[in-house]
């Protein structure tokens, strides 16, 4: 039987705990990398100190002692760093980063409730070694002596005394609305907490409670050595209480940075015990933002989707009513209401979309650490430049792009950037640069991963593909350079000279492409031998609502995502050429393979159209094009993508369904699937 861990938090709070600790851990990770690069940076050190401190508090509050102990010793080391009593060094940053890794696993235990097997004791001892040797260590020369600045930061610095005396518990609770004597209950709480320690503040104040004012919400700050469990027990016998929340803090709320810098030591000392009221009011300001679950946002988005559908339906109904009936007062009132509803729906859709947007930073900030570690393991020097991390993207897309980006960055470190000697020999700086940049472009965002490494040699890719039997020698010879480079997206191809543990197993690039395609995005590669390689990922801003071109096929309506439509053509039958199994038409100086959708979907041939011009929708997927032959075009609409359900399952050429304005169901065409099919058909010549 595996051991189950117990923590002092409600199951509902697990997710919040996970998210908050993840944020703090991220801060630590990032900050440590920054100081490794820049050396002693008081502001950054203060930030990571604070992160470690917050983590200690959260871990302590739920009774995760190993995590609290580890963060405590990290905090002690960081305090020394901040005071300049310890110098930033690579071994120290490495140690702190290992501690961060351990923290990640320890934090996960709260969700899994199974021991992660992490024993922080070794790390704690190593960290403590730094604090002990500090006494003997001379002040590092690289750190300017800033006694005033250090003192000025004094008030923010918790006294690192192991005693629990300075600990303050903040107890907040609600008293039931139907309590017959809410003030008496509040007084009971105050009296009970007085047994635990000194009451520093309460809101409402004790006087108000004594006056007998009805109290339904009570917040008390008490200096106590008791833990949450004991406090909770102390309150357990009091009736009518609900939602009792206990948190601990050992320091004051953060003061604005500039204010801190200007504070003199004396003022600082005076301010070191801020009024409890101020403390409570600082906490209040954090109530301006609300954490909400992704599920709730998804639900909101679905509801908005329904509204969009209904708006379309109303618009359509109104226009058919107007055709039938004479224009009346009611009809124009209806028109007004619909148009108002329509604009509100648009706005609501926009707002809900925005609420679901996250800056790219959320994915990007994982990478500096990863690239650093990879480069070190590979014996390479790499700088990761990040740009446009503020670009926002729907969280459903954000979640899905982390993996493809990780593959691309690994590839850049592993295969792109050369070892320092090789770079020097090529007359390049020893340190390679990888640029990770995001930017928005209309309804898409584009993410670029560019390295200044050796580039991809089309010859090598060609050879490798032939050797691995992926294509024939003749076919390889016929490929243009850029087509040859595109072979890297084929499953089973890897040009790495040696296999490393992170990439080069021949999985990766094909996964990148298929992941991005699943998001209705594209990936493009350009490379210059000796100069570097650039990957460009283009992704839709959201996956939930999609503008489409509606087409007609044997009486049925089908949707083609507008993002993949390049052009709509009328093609005369004599300009269609047969090549082996497929048909092509000359278009924009290239052969556009045609796919007759009726045929693809096993529908009857349209005899009436023989000899007439056909409607062809030219679609693009990545660098590939195909022409979809349809019966006719019906116009554009915004649709909400819906699943066809398990009963139907995967159907070739169809990715889902949508409800149109008239209430009927239209099927959404799977453009990537069809384009691939068209190419396969024509490639067999």
């Amino acid at each position: 039987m595996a051991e189950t861990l117990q923590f002092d938090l409600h199951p509902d709070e697990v997710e919040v705990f996970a998210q908050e600790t993840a944020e703090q851990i991220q801060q630590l990770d990032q900050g440590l990398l920054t100081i490794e690069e820049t050396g002693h940076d008081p502001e950054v050190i203060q930030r990571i100190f604070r992160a470690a401190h917050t983590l200690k508090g959260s871990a302590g509050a739920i009774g995760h002692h190993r995590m609290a102990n580890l963060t405590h010793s990290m905090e002690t080391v960081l305090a020394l760093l901040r005071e300049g009593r310890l110098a930033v060094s690579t071994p120290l940053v490495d140690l702190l980063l290992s501690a961060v890794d351990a923290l990640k696993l320890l934090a996960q235990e709260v969700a899994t409730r199974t021991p992660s097997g992490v024993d922080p004791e070794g790390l704690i001892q190593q960290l403590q070694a730094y604090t002990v040797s500090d006494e003997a260590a001379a002040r590092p020369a690289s750190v300017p002596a800033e006694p005033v600045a250090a003192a000025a930061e004094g008030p923010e610095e918790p006294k690192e005394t192991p005693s629990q005396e300075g600990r303050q518990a903040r107890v907040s609770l609600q008293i039931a609305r139907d309590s017959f004597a809410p003030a008496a209950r509040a007084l009971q709480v105050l009296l009970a907490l007085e047994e635990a320690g000194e009451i520093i503040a309460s809101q409402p104040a004790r006087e108000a409670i004594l006056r007998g004012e009805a109290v339904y919400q009570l917040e008390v700050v008490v200096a106590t050595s008791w833990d949450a469990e004991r406090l909770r027990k102390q309150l357990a016998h009091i009736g009518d209480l609900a939602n009792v929340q206990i948190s601990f803090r050992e320091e004051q709320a953060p003061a604005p940075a500039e204010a801190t810098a200007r504070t003199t030591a004396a003022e600082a000392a005076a301010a070191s015990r801020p009024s409890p009221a101020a403390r409570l009011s600082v906490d209040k300001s954090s109530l301006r933002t609300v954490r909400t679950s992704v599920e709730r946002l998804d639900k909101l988005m679905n509801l908005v989707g329904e509204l969009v559908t209904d708006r379309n339906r109303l618009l359509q109904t109104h226009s058919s009513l107007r055709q039938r009936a004479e224009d009346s007062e009611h009809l124009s009132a209806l028109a007004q209401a619909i148009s108002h509803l329509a604009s509100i729906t648009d706005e609501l859709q926009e707002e809900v979309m925005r609420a679901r947007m996250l800056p790219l930073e959320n994915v990007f900030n994982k990478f500096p650490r990863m690239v650093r570690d990879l480069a070190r393991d590979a014996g390479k020097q790499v700088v990761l430049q990040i740009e446009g991390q503020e670009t926002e993207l729907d969280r459903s897309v954000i979640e899905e792009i982390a993996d493809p980006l990780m593959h691309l960055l690994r590839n850049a470190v592993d295969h792109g950037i050369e070892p320092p000697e090789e770079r020097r020999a090529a007359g390049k700086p020893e340190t390679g640069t990888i640029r990770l940049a995001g930017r928005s472009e209309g309804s898409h965002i584009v993410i670029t991963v560019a390295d200044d490494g050796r580039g991809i040699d089309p010859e090598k890719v060609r050879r490798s593909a032939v050797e691995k039997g992926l294509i024939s020698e003749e076919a390889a010879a016929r490929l243009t350079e850029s087509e040859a480079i595109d072979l890297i997206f084929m499953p089973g191809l890897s040009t790495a000279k040696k296999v490393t543990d992170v990439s080069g197993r021949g999985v990766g690039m094909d996964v990148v492409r298929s992941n991005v395609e699943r998001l209705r995005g594209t990936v493009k590669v350009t490379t210059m031998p000796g100069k570097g390689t650039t990957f460009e990922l283009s992704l839709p801003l959201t996956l939930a609502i999609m503008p489409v071109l509606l087409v007609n096929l044997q009486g049925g309506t089908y949707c083609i995502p507008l993002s993949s439509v390049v052009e709509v053509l009328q093609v005369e039958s004599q300009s269609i050429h047969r090549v082996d199994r497929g048909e092509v038409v000359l278009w924009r100086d290239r052969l556009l393979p045609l796919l007759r959708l009726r045929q693809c979907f096993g529908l009857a041939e349209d005899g009436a159209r023989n000899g007439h011009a056909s409607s062809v929708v030219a679609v693009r997927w990545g660098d590939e094009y195909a022409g979809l032959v349809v019966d006719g075009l019906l116009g554009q609409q915004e649709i909400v993508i819906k699943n066809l359900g398990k009963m139907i399952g995967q159907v070739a050429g169809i990715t889902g369904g949508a409800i149109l304005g008239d209430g009927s169901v239209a099927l959404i065409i799977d453009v990537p699937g069809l384009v691939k099919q068209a190419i396969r058909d024509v490639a067999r010549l």
Partner: protein
Amino acid sequence: MKDQMSEEQLVVFELAGESYGVEIGRVQEIDRMQAITVVPQAPPFVEGVINLRGRITPVVDLRTRFGLPKAEPTPLTRIVVVKAGEEWVGLVVDAVSEVLRIPVDAIEPPSAMVTTAESTYLRGIAKLESRLIILLDLDRVLDKEFQAAAPVLA
């Protein structure tokens, strides 16, 4: 309470001259026949999909599912929408006749009857004074992988 326990409520519908019953608890609603969007290359017994108040709902033609001859829809044709886990599925039937309350002891399990195959869509048969109602095992009817002969009385 006790009485309710020993009774079962069925939605009874007609298909090629036989009466079939499904538990009322599984039935979401009963709709008139409506335009069905054909899904090319879907499993053969899936007629297509319909819009049920914003939900795309697959529709199964029970005649096709049971290997019975196809029939043109009539004014009596109905779509019985049943729950399949989280999803809804519409079943096209010739007509819905009634909602019946039958005593549990009127139901004979399939093992008591002579069936040609081990596996059938049959859950049992309800014997009433003048007629027999075939009770369907909906989970099997809705299981794409499951195939059996039509549960028709000999």
